[in-house]
C-alpha cells in the first residue's frame, strides 16, 4: 500500500516537473525572442540625443552661431509622491508658474518634459527635489552671441523634439552638415519603472563647423550704415553687398531691417529675408556701364562720337523718356558719368536685341549666382521674343528687368577684375575634427576682355570724379561707381512714389579690392541715388578701406589733352 502511494506521488511529481520543464523550454527556447522583447520594453528605453550642432564663424573669427550643452528635464509623473508640492518647489527654479507646472504634470501622460534647454545647474536643482522621478536628458541650445549681426545670412533654427533643425538661412541650407550624428542612450528601469541609469550605448559626433567669408566687423559697419540710411530717408528696407572682385569672396551681406535669430518669431517673416540675395529690384542706371560695354564690344560706336542730349528727353515708340542731364552733347563717357537717359537710349538702339539680351545674360542677370543660399532670386530678364518696342530703351535704363544686389555686385566685379564673372563664395570651408572640405573657388566665365574692362573702369571713375556719383568719393582713394534711381513696377506699371536708389562701385583703383553695392528700397524723403545711396556707399567704403587695411592711393593721373565729356550747346 505504502509502496503504491509512493509510486503515485513520485509519478505526480515527475509529471509536474515535466510540465515545468516543457514550460521552461517554451519560455527560454521557443518564445525566447518574444519574452526578450517584452523584458526589454519593460526595462529599457532607447533615447536618441542629437550631436552638438556645429558653429558658424566669420572669416575674422567671430562666432555667429554656436551650440551649448543643456539638459531636458523629464518627470515620471507616476513616481511623484506629491505632485503639487513638487510643482510649487520646481516652478521658481525653471522659471514657470506653479499652476503651469501642475498642468503639465497632470496632463495624463506618464512621462512629461518639464522643461527643455535648461542649464545643468537648473537641472540638478530640480533633480534634487525628486531624484527618483526626475531624469536629466542631454540637450543643447542654439545661441547667437552677436544677436542680429548677419542674422538673415545665418538664419535660425527650430526644434523637433530634442532635435535642432535649421529653418532659414545657412542654418537651413547646411542643416545636414551642421547637425552631426546623434548619440544613442539606453534608459534602464527597474521592476517598478524607476529609472536606474542612463547609459550611452553609442557616441555621436558634433556637427561640422562652417567658416564664412564674411568679415563680422565690416558686416556690422554695413548694417549700421544701412540702418542710418533707412532712418534718415524713411526707406522701407536697404541692402548692401561687399565682395572681393578677385576671388568672389563675399565680405558683407547686409539686409536691414533684420531680426534677432534667438527670437525670430517676434519679427515679421519679411525681415528674415536676405534681401541682397533673395530680392530682385529694377537696377536703374546701374546697368548703363554694361550697355556701354556691349556697345563697345559690338563696335557700334565711333571714336569720340557725341550724343545729342539737348531735348531733356527722348521719344521711343510714342513714349516720352525724361532726361535729367544738363542739355548738351555728351561723349559715351559723358553719357555714363552724367547718366543721360537719352544718350543711353541712342546707344542701346544700335544694338541687336539678341546681342543685348545675351550681354545681360552674360553678366549673370536672370540666373542664380550659385552662392549656396536657399531661395536665391534669379531676377527677371524678359526673353527677346516678348520685348515690346519700348523694351530695348527700358532695359538700357534698367527698367523692365530685375536683378538682385548680389547679381549686380558680381557684374561690377567682372568690370573691376578685368572681365571675369566670379562665382560668389559665402562659405569658405566646413571643418570638423580632421575632415576638411574646402569650398572651391572658380570663375563662372569671362564676359569682357581686359582692355574693355579698363575702359569701363575709367568711365565709372569719371562718374565719381565729376558725374552723378560725387557723393560716393572717399578722400585719399580712387573710387569708381555708378548711381541708379529706378522706379519699381507696381500693379503692372511704374509710378512716381516707389523707387529704388542704387549705388554700385568699387575701390581702390587701379587694383580694386572691394566691390560695394547699396540698394535703398522706397526711400520717402528723397529718392535720387546721388543723395540717398551714394553717401551710404561712401560711408561703407570708408569702413571697408579701414577694416581691410587698404592704403590710400595717389590721385588719378589726368590724361594729357583730355577732352571734355560734354559740350554745351548754346
Amino acid at each position: 500500500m505504502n509502496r503504491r502511494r509512493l509510486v503515485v506521488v513520485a509519478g505526480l511529481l515527475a509529471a509536474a516537473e515535466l510540465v515545468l520543464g516543457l514550460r521552461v523550454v517554451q519560455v527560454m527556447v521557443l518564445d525566447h525572442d518574444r519574452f526578450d522583447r517584452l523584458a526589454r520594453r519593460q526595462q529599457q528605453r532607447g533615447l536618441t540625443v542629437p550631436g552638438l550642432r556645429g558653429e558658424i564663424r566669420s572669416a575674422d573669427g567671430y562666432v555667429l552661431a554656436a551650440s551649448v550643452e543643456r539638459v531636458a528635464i523629464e518627470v515620471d509623473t507616476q513616481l511623484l509622491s506629491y505632485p503639487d508640492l513638487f510643482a510649487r518647489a520646481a516652478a521658481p527654479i525653471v522659471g514657470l508658474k506653479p499652476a503651469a507646472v501642475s498642468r503639465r504634470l497632470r496632463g495624463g501622460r506618464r512621462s512629461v518634459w518639464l522643461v527643455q534647454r535648461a542649464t545643468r545647474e537648473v537641472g540638478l536643482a530640480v533633480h534634487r527635489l525628486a531624484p527618483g522621478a526626475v531624469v536629466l536628458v542631454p540637450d543643447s541650445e542654439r545661441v547667437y552671441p552677436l544677436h542680429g549681426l548677419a542674422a538673415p545670412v545665418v538664419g535660425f533654427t527650430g526644434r523637433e523634439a530634442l532635435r535642432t533643425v535649421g529653418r532659414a538661412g545657412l542654418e537651413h541650407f547646411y542643416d545636414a552638415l551642421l547637425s552631426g550624428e546623434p548619440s544613442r542612450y539606453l534608459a534602464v528601469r527597474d521592476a517598478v519603472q524607476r529609472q536606474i541609469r542612463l547609459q550611452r550605448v553609442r557616441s555621436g559626433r558634433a556637427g561640422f563647423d562652417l567658416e564664412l567669408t564674411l568679415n563680422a566687423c565690416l558686416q556690422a559697419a554695413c548694417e549700421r550704415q544701412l540702418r542710418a540710411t533707412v532712418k534718415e530717408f524713411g526707406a522701407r528696407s536697404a541692402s548692401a553687398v561687399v565682395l572681393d572682385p578677385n576671388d568672389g569672396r563675399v565680405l558683407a551681406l547686409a539686409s536691414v531691417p533684420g531680426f534677432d535669430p534667438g527670437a525670430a518669431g517676434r519679427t515679421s517673416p519679411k525681415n528674415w529675408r536676405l534681401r541682397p540675395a533673395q530680392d530682385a529690384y529694377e537696377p536703374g542706371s546701374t546697368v548703363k556701364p554694361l550697355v556701354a560695354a556691349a556697345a563697345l564690344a559690338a563696335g557700334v560706336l565711333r571714336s569720340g562720337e557725341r550724343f545729342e542730349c539737348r531735348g531733356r528727353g527722348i521719344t521711343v515708340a510714342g513714349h516720352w523718356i525724361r532726361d535729367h542731364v544738363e542739355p548738351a552733347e555728351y561723349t559715351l563717357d559723358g553719357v555714363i558719368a552724367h547718366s543721360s537717359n537719352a544718350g543711353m537710349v541712342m546707344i542701346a538702339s544700335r544694338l541687336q536685341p539678341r546681342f543685348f539680351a545675351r550681354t545681360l545674360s552674360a553678366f549673370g542677370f536672370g540666373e542664380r549666382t550659385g552662392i549656396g543660399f536657399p531661395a536665391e532670386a534669379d531676377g527677371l530678364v524678359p526673353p527677346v521674343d516678348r520685348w515690346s518696342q519700348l523694351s530695348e530703351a527700358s532695359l538700357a535704363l534698367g527698367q523692365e528687368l530685375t536683378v538682385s544686389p548680389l547679381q549686380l555686385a558680381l557684374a561690377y566685379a567682372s568690370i573691376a577684375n578685368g572681365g571675369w564673372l566670379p562665382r560668389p563664395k559665402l562659405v569658405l570651408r566646413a571643418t570638423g575634427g580632421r575632415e576638411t572640405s574646402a569650398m572651391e573657388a572658380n570663375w563662372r566665365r569671362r564676359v569682357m576682355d581686359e582692355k574693355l574692362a579698363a575702359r569701363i573702369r575709367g568711365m565709372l571713375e569719371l562718374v565719381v570724379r565729376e558725374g552723378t556719383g560725387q557723393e560716393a568719393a572717399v578722400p585719399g582713394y580712387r573710387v569708381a561707381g555708378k548711381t541708379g534711381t529706378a522706379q519699381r513696377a507696381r500693379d503692372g506699371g511704374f509710378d512716381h512714389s516707389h523707387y529704388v536708389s542704387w549705388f554700385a562701385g568699387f575701390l581702390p583703383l587701379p587694383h580694386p579690392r572691394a566691390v560695394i553695392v547699396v540698394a535703398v528700397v522706397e526711400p520717402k524723403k528723397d529718392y535720387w541715388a546721388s543723395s540717398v545711396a551714394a553717401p551710404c556707399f561712401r560711408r561703407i567704403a570708408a569702413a571697408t578701406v579701414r577694416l581691410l587695411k587698404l592704403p590710400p592711393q595717389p590721385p588719378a593721373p589726368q590724361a594729357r589733352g583730355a577732352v571734355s565729356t560734354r559740350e554745351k550747346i548754346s
Partner: protein
Amino acid sequence: MIELPIERPSNQFLVRERDHRWLPALAATLMLAMLLGSLLFLVGWPRLQATSIHYDLIRLRAQVEELERQHRELEVTVERARSPELLARRAQRLGLQPPDPSQLRVVLPGGGS
C-alpha cells in the same frame, strides 16, 4: 566501589628527538605559498591597478566633458562681450569714432609714410 590497580603507560623511556623532515617541508610550503602569492600579485595587482585607472579615466573623462562644456559657455560669453556692434556703441558713448579715410597714414617698413 572497588578501585582496581591500573598500570598506566609511562613515557619515561621515550626519547624526544627532533624531526629533521619539517624544514624541507616547511620550506617547500613557504616556497609554494610565495609562488602562489607572487602569482596572485602578478595577476591581481595589474588588474587592481587597471580597475583603479579605469575609474580614474571615467572621472577624468567626465571632468574633460564638464570643462569643455564650461569652455563653450565661456566662449559664448566672450563672443557676446566682443560683439563689434556692442563695442561700437560703447566706443561711441565714450566719444570715440572711426577715423576718416583721409586721416589714415600708412607706415612703411622702412620708416617712411
